[in-house]
């Protein structure tokens, strides 16, 4: 069965080629059928693989030699194991729902752009599948850059708008910064171990010095920072919301941005052996979680709120990775994929109904117009806020409990972030769905629930968001009920061996922690709803801290001032001063010097016969004096003169 693994990425690739080449000749329904169908096919194969792995364990399938150079070879190989099969299911499953959703959401596009959209989306799924299927870091890197490319293409999908193009470019370049780190880590591995295949690397970890491991893991983490939008490379993700909403759901929430988490979970042994890196990961994850949450408190664009929420949740996942709760992080990736995709698709449904209005201050009261969207959105909000028994509660709780075991301060800050999450999510919910409608009359007239292609994915995702958490019921509730941990245990066995058994807090303490945080979250939700229920549109400028938050702590401006502008200035300096006046000036200067010299020498050729003769005579005198400068003549001359 696992021999058929190549089918998983092959289907989306075929879809890309067919839709890409046939975007002008195929009809829209055909395009969406192909586009979604290939993903469904991949999903089915992934499901079969999942059960195969469950029954028979992991396997590596080599297709051909990709690079065979001196001293190392990099096969084009796929690794099907517990971790990748879970990601396969998430990617193709959520991916299929989003493709289905897109077929209705993007229906207003011209056929050729519709085809282009599905082609890009299929290419994205292909790259993402390569990323998780690759059996070595280079194949992962192919997918890693591939998803970056697709993200670039899709953010700038409406390429007539230059703002979107800038956002796309920013995303790609920030990702590239991270990619450089990733690439250097790969070189380091090749240099020290001569291999990048997971199996060989993890088996030979003991050959690496602790400096090597720390360096490699830090560089890999730089890659993760770029791809998974962590401090300091997170600013591209909110701007990436320029793309169509389903793209935001698929790429910038559910799958691509979790690549960094996948990579670290995949390399968990390396990270476990580099405690310094783990601390860095945890601290950066936690800071990102808090920073993004504060910004989300004051955003008014429905997608921006969700974007910052994504950054924040990714921060939690990194916190989990940093404290060694690898299962927890993967668990959160999964539940987050469900509820965040649901939130984005719900937002898309709202935006669709509101005719591309994205400002939540101009919404309100949509509850009665969009009943399905409303219910599913509410469930997703509860899930992300961490209300039991919704899925977010279990995954977030697992991460926070592990963080508590590592350092109670992590836990306290983490819970603080979770409270903010609850607040901004319900601010968003209240402003959008409760209260009175604040938009124009025309918008109100046209409000309508979305077609079934859009509501069906919402319903499925809502079910998953509600019940997905039961895959990972914590130890305190029921012994050995954490089926995900059980399933993934082969992947993290090596790390477990190093760290030993996790120190779980006592059961009573854990109950108290859960209870307190749940109550606090519930209070936050209450505050948010009561505060924004009666919201009236006002355009007053925010002041003080709110203004700073609304402007995202001025980080973009800071980057412009510290990096972008100086870089431009240096480039301009190189181009105009060093190149033109410096190097080229020097080269031309040599030329000019020769020209000047010959112009001066030319003056000797005055054309005056007398001058020539004078020079001739002088030259002869000199010649005689020099040439016959021997004693005999000198004596003779002395004698006669």
């Amino acid at each position, binding site marked *: 069965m696992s021999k058929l693994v190549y089918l998983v990425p092959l289907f989306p690739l075929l879809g890309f080629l067919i839709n890409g080449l046939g975007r002008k000749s195929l009809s829209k329904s055909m395009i969406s059928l192909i586009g979604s169908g290939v993903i469904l096919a991949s999903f089915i194969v992934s499901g079969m693989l999942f059960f195969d792995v469950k029954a028979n364990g992991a396997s590596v399938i080599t297709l*051909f*030699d*990709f*690079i*065979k*150079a*001196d*001293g*190392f070879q990099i096969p084009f190989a796929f690794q099907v194991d517990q971790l990748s099969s879970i990601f396969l299911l998430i990617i193709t499953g959520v991916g299929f729902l989003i493709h289905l959703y897109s077929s209705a959401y993007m229906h207003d596009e011209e056929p*050729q752009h519709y085809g282009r959209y599905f082609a890009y989306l299929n290419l994205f799924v292909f790259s993402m599948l390569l990323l998780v299927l690759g059996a070595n870091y*280079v194949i992962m*890197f*192919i997918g*890693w*850059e*591939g998803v970056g*490319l697709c993200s*670039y293409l899709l953010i*700038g999908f409406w*390429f*007539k*708008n*230059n703002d979107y*193009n*800038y956002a796309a*470019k920013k995303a*790609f*370049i920030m990702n*590239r*910064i991270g*990619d*450089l780190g990733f*690439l*250097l880590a790969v*070189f*380091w591995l*090749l*240099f020290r171990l001569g291999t990048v295949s997971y199996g060989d690397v993890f088996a030979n970890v003991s050959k690496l010095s602790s400096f090597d491991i720390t360096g490699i893991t830090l560089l890999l983490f730089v890659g993760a920072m770029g791809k998974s939008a962590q401090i300091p490379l997170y600013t591209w993700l909110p701007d990436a919301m320029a793309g169509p909403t389903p793209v935001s759901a698929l790429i910038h929430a559910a799958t691509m941005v979790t690549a960094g988490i996948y990579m670290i979970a995949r390399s968990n042994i390396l990270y476990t052996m580099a405690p310094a890196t783990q601390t860095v990961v945890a601290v950066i994850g936690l800071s990102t979680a808090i920073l993004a949450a504060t910004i989300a408190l004051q955003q008014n664009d429905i997608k921006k709120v969700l974007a910052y929420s994504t950054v924040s949740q990714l921060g939690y996942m990194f916190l989990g990775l940093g404290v060694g709760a690898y299962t927890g992080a993967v668990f959160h990736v999964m539940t987050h994929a469900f509820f965040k995709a649901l939130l984005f698709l719900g937002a898309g449904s709202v935006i669709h109904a509101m005719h591309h209005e994205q400002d939540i201050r101009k919404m309100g009261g949509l509850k009665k117009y969009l009943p399905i969207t409303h219910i599913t959105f509410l469930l997703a909000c509860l899930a992300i806020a961490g209300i039991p028994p919704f899925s977010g509660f279990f995954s977030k709780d697992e991460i926070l409990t592990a963080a508590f075991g590592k350092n109670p301060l992590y836990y306290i800050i983490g819970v603080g972030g979770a409270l903010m999450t609850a607040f901004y999510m319900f601010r968003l919910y209240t402003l959008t769905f409760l209260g009175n409608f604040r938009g124009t009359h025309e918008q109100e007239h046209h409000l309508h629930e979305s077609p079934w292609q859009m509501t069906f994915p919402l319903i499925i995702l809502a079910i998953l968001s509600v019940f997905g958490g039961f895959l990972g019921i914590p130890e305190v509730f029921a012994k050995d009920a954490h089926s995900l941990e059980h399933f993934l245990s082969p992947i993290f066995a090596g790390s477990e061996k190093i760290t030993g058994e996790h120190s779980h807090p006592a059961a009573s303490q854990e109950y108290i922690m859960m209870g307190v945080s749940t109550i606090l979250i519930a209070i936050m939700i209450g505050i948010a709803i009561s505060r924004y229920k009666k919201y009236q549109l006002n355009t007053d400028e925010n002041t003080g801290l709110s203004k700073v938050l609304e402007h995202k702590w001025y980080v973009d401006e800071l980057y412009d001032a510290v990096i972008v502008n100086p*870089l*431009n200035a*240096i*480039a*301009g300096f*190189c*181009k105009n001063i*060093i*190149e033109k006046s410096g*190097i*080229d000036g020097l*080269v*031309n200067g040599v*030329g000019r010097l020769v020209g000047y010299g010959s112009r001066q020498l030319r003056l000797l050729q005055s054309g005056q016969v007398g001058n020539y003769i004078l020079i001739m005579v002088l030259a002869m005198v000199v010649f005689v004096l020099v040439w016959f400068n021997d004693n005999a003549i000198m004596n003779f001359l002395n004698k006669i003169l």
Partner: protein
Amino acid sequence: MIPVLLILIPLLTGLISFFIKDDKSVKTWSLLSAIVTLLIAFTAVFSCYPAQLSYDAAWLPTLGSRFALMTDGMGKMLCLLTAVSFPLIFAAIFKNNYKQSSGFYGLMLLSQAGLMGVFTAADALVFYFFWELALIPVYFLCSIWGGEKRIAVTFKFFIYTFLGSLLMLVGILFLYFHTNDHSFALKSFYHIHLSGKQENFIFWLFFIAFAIKMPIFPFHTWQPDAYEQSPTATTMVMSGIMVKMGIFAVVRWLLPVFPNASVQFANIIIILSVIGMIYASLIAIRQDDIKRLIAYSSIAHIGLMCAAIFTQNKTGLEGVMIQMFNHGINVLGLWIVADVIEQKLGTRKFSELGGLAQKAPVLAILLVVMSLANIALPLTNAFIGEFLMFNGLFQYNIWIAAAAGISIILAAVYTLNMIQKVLYGNTVAATENAVEISGNIQLVLVILAITVIVLGVYPQPMMELTKDTVNAILVNH
């Protein structure tokens, strides 16, 4: 015999085409000639008989110079690159009109003959002869069919490269007098024993000649001007193939002949190359002219190749080998696009372009593919080469590799700038009435794009081709 054919066919057809007066037939004639050469190059690549691949005849017996040709893996690959490029160039410019086209095509073919000679020469004098034969037609092409400032630019280009050539000639003569058997043969050069001082001195004579040709920072300033002012077909030859002459020459004539000096000065050269990479990338960010942008991007890429050569480890060299071919293919595609834009829209300035993706989607897709190859995205051909070269550089020194890595980021910046300014946004005055590119150019670009992808996914055959050269070069040490 094959190398002789590779030289003779373009040489003879080139001379004949000077006498073909009809515009259409001279185009067809040279395209046919280039295709025949391509077929022969293929036989060279797939030939199993070593005897076919070399040639040796008396030339100037009193001087000890023989007309000796040979094709090793690197030679085969570069001959193949030359042979692949010319038909594509001729096909891409098939609809362009040049005044006195017989002269234009004749000189192009002569230049091809020179290039083939350079890549196959196994005798220093023959090498020098073909080196000049390849360059001189280009001077004429640039000064007759070039842009407004062509005379001044060609003059600079000529003086610059000619200075390099003369330095090399001095070096060759010096080495000739120090060979044991007074010969110009490559083998005799490989067995020369020089004192340390002599070696260091002559090394620089050669290196400066090659550095000007590549070009390496700070000898590069002729290049953007020359690329900008030359007719684009000539620029394609210069940037796609001729810069490889410099790299090829370093591998063939510099490393094995001056083993000690090339280790001793590796540091300086690598640092210069890396500075050049970053410097050229920075300048490319601020360019407003598509041809100059590609020129600077090319300088950056060549810098990486030069640095990787001097790391003198196998990984780096293997990367250089494959990248020589790939870079040729990639810049060829970019230049063709630049040419199309200039011919169709009459401007090369980004500030006067925009929105082309709406008017010419096929061009847009192909330009994007070429640009992605230019930034070495995985699964394009350039990734393999750059991966190996960076890997070699990393083995040499981690900090230099990291510094050079900055150019990866900068490459993304300027290439995406280009895509955005040319293709995206709304149409402007110049692009308002733009139409899709014509069939011949589509065909050429599609061939290039397929090559980019195929070599990016399955690079192994190309790497096998040049393995012998890499091993031979590093065994000599």
